[in-house]
């Protein structure tokens, strides 16, 4: 930096006397007032935006659901198709989430610890589900596993039906929720390092023993966080499942599909009730996520 450049910063002479002090105090107070006004303006705008876009609509659906009391809500929950949709959704989650968890941990190990060509490309491929429309996911699966798809003839010879049945729903769900466990596990794996694992190996532990006793306990909170995100996404998946399931009432209709079905049949109580059930599950997920982040932070602080 040149000398003249430094000279442009003029330092005002030290204030002397009461007058100067109070002037400086005034200026400080004015600046503080301005900062306060700024904070309040931003707060008003930001909270107003959140209230209009998020809070008011979500509150409204709870009000609409319960405005005629609990009896219609109870009937809506007890409806056979609602029950079937709910349990089907849980069944799909119970298959897709463990699959993605096992895959996610393995893939995270491979991406974080492995050395091979095309690692960057593999990482991109894992993230692909985040960039693909759910509808396109459904279409892609139909093109492979559907009746006219690549494996269609072979599958029907074996008597296996994937599209328009539960396995297709599981595939679609697993596809859209694929990246979460991988992405949440990689950073904790990096943080964990390899010292403890090396020590275990030196002491004679086998690869599997080291994995179960050292690696997995070390990364468990990252994995759990990923599992929570996977579950939330899996439970709510709509577009991809809508295409591969065929939306057969009481057979391949998951809870999100049931919401649409009720809504389009002008059964608003049925639609709102199912939506509220899903919303409550989503909020439980949020709560769990918050607890987990706090837990991880606490652990890091100690």
């Amino acid at each position, binding site marked *: 930096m040149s000398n003249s450049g430094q000279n442009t910063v003029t330092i005002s002479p030290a204030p002397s006397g009461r007058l100067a002090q109070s002037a400086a105090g005034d200026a400080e107070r004015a600046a503080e007032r301005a900062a306060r006004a700024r904070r309040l303006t931003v707060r008003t705008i930001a909270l107003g935006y959140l209230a209009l876009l998020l809070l008011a609509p*979500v509150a409204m659906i709870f009000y609409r659901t319960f405005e005629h009391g609990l009896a219609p809500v109870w009937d809506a929950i007890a409806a056979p198709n609602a029950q079937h949709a709910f349990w089907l959704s849980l069944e799909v989650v119970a298959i897709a989430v463990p699959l993605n968890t096992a895959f996610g941990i393995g893939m995270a190990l491979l991406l974080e610890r492995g050395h091979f060509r095309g690692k960057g490309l593999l990482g991109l491929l894992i993230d692909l589900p985040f960039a693909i429309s759910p509808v396109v996911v459904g279409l892609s699966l139909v093109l492979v596993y559907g009746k006219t798809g690549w494996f269609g003839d072979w599958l029907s010879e074996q008597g296996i039906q994937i599209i328009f049945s539960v396995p297709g729903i599981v595939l679609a769900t697993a596809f859209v929720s694929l990246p979460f466990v991988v992405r949440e596990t990689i950073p904790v794996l990096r943080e964990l390092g390899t010292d403890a694992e090396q020590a275990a190996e030196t002491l004679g532990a086998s690869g599997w023993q080291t994995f179960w006793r050292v690696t997995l306990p070390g990364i468990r909170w990252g994995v759990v966080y990923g599992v929570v995100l996977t579950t939330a996404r899996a439970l709510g998946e709509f577009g991809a499942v809508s295409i591969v399931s065929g939306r057969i009432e009481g057979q391949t209709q998951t809870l999100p599909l049931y919401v649409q079905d009720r809504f389009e049949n002008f059964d608003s109580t049925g639609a709102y009730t199912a939506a509220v059930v899903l919303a409550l599950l989503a909020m439980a997920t949020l709560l769990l996520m918050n607890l987990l982040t706090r837990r991880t932070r606490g652990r890091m602080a100690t």
Partner: protein
Amino acid sequence: MPVRPTGALGKGLLGIYLTALVLLPVAALLAKSSSGGTSAFWRAISSPEAVAAIKLTLIATAIVVVVNAVFGTLIAWMLVRDEFRGKGVVNSMIDLPFALPTIVAGVVLLALYGKDSPVGVNVAFTRVAVGVALLFVTLPFVVRSVQPVLHELDLSMEEAAASLGARSGTVLRRIVLPSLAPAIISGVALSFARAVGEFGSLVLITGNLPFKTEVGSVYIFGQIENDSLPAAAAVSVVLLAAALVVLGVLSLASRRLSRHVQ
């Protein structure tokens, strides 16, 4: 030896899973979209209805990400620099659109802004509804990418600039925004990819009217229902390419800018 993805068996299983789930389906999509040659592909994506749907998707997404950039940054700023009661609740509420199933997002918006609106605002079956639904589902991206950066941002730089007489507008323009720009851009990129392919939150509230409120993903859905899979695949490839190109360009820009700031 640190734990490695155990042996050939583990790698094989990972490979089979990824191939069966992602690789083959995406390959089948590309194959189907080009099954009739370039001219068929071109015809599929240049049909008036497809063009209208793609155009609406891209324009709505572009508007939505700009709004997201502004409000997302404001919300992040409030969450980091402001203190008030209930801030923790607001902070955890931000992630709700990620946790909420997309179809529920649509129902939720319709409950307040649909035909039974208690406040008399009915945007159902209009293009405004497309924007509102997309804003809802993409809300967290910019907030969550700007928040940690703002948290790490050194206050002393701003204070120094202010004490040297810089106006708050100048501080914002010269110090705060340049430091936040990479995070804002990466949030925008994620919002864009999400919005371009969004489906669930739109099906109920937009009414899916061709040439009016029908977005790309809804058009693809219609083509699948009509059993014209090549056309569906062709438009899918266009949407996917748009998402990937924007993600690539913006993440490059974000990385460049952050290097520049450092």
